[in-house]
């Protein structure tokens, strides 16, 4: 292995929160197959908290482990707390990543943030527009 920690191996072999959320409150997709990794994060928000987080990832062992770890770290946190999950924190929680895999932790944090942003931008539209009610109904 590219010298992965036991924690990375655990999250790779037993990834938490794999999957999609039906009618998610936010979706964040980063990366692409050309650069080798692609992650999609789905979030469900309840009372400003991440009630559920799921992901799908195409990529190396580190990409999968990072996705799993990010999802676990984010779940239950408030949106503001979750937005403060940095690549460094993710790598630390995973007990380190090989140098050439640092970008995976970047991607993971980015994907989560994108999902949060997605949720927030939708919220803004909701607050400002009359589709308010229609959306609420659809999202429940």
């Amino acid at each position, binding site marked *: 292995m590219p010298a992965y920690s036991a924690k990375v191996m655990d999250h790779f072999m037993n990834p938490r929160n794999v999957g999609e959320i039906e009618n998610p409150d936010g979706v964040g*997709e980063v990366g692409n197959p050309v650069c*080798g*990794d692609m992650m999609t994060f789905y979030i469900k928000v309840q009372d400003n908290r991440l009630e559920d987080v799921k992901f799908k*990832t195409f990529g*190396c062992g580190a990409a*999968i482990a990072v996705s799993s770890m990010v999802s676990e770290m984010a779940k239950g946190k408030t949106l503001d707390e979750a937005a403060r999950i940095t690549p460094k924190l993710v790598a630390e929680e995973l007990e380190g990543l090989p140098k050439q*895999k640092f970008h995976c932790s970047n991607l993971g944090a980015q994907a989560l943030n994108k999902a949060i942003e997605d949720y927030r931008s939708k919220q803004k539209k909701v607050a400002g527009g009359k589709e308010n009610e229609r959306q609420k109904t659809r999202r429940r």
Partner: protein
Amino acid sequence: MIKVYLDNASTTPILPAVKEAMLPYLGEDFGNPSCIHSWGDVAREAVETAREQVAQLIGGNIEEIVFTSSGTESNNFAIKGLALAQQNKGKHVVVSAIEHFSVLHSAKTLEKWGFELTLVPVDKYGVVDPDDVRKSLRKDTVLVSIMHANNEVGTLEPIREIARITREHGVVLHTDAVATAGTVPVDIKDLGVDALSLAGNQFYGPKGAGALWVKRGVRIMPLLDGGVQEGGRRAGTENVPAIVGLGKAAELAKADMTRRTEHIARLRDRLLKELPARIEHVVVTGHPQDRIPGNASFCIEFIEGESMLMLLNSQGVAVTSGSACTSRALLASHVLIAMGLSHEIAQGSLLFSFGIDNTSADVEHVLEVMPPIVERLRQMSPLYSKFIKASKGGK
């Protein structure tokens, strides 16, 4: 746990007889071959015997064999040494787009040194068209290097035809035979090349010994300057045990080649046929027929190579993905891209490379563990879910 080594393209196990031949030189017979005393004599004779064995393997003369530390060194030596020795004649070099990085990056270094470089393309099977080589030749072309077979997809290149063209034009032709020498018949006269690289750890010899064969009369500059070892072409105390091992491995390879090839190709053929039958969306890479016997290479769509390697490893199976072993992970193999595959598909490359120790049981094990691994990673893959949704008629 069942352990199945199917990464013989990265390095082979060392045959017991090869190890046995090496042991004295890690013990009592530790002398330096350049030295003028009996320890030196014993070491020198061992090196010269190995030179004979390697020369025999490829049909060369003993004075034409230069021992190196690896296939990589042989290739660096060839590309840089042959080009530099002829730079007064011209500064243009031609290599194929699918060369091993030790050739490709050496050629790029030549570019930094003022040479011009032409990359010859390949078709979808990874085959170089000799006519493309012909078209690439210029008045100032001094060196062409086309590999004998590609290590990732196994495709054999039409070296004979290319050699006819380079000979016509009086251009030196090197071939990287690291993936073929000791595995399939390699005869320098038959091929018609001027220089040829090989490495012992590809045919059950030890790491640490390779060779470059350079035809008599072809000039080459040393890569390693210093003493006058190897006829002044490669300085440094010879790695006697590894060279002895290389020689022994060459002898055994020559004697046993047909049997080995038959055994290996039989296993490989089953995998090449069965894997795509058991798993959907699998692309066989490389040439359908003209490929080295041990190579079964695929791209598994929608998923990425490293994660497959890791799950296969958890099932005891050792393989490699594209050029994972020599490139920064995550970059898709330059070989597959040159063959026209998309990055998306190239990321899912997987190379099973068979060796003489493999058995039918190994193939069956792979055929058993692969489908659930692929299924599991596809379930995780956003690309796969997109594909499924798209084929169901959209989101």
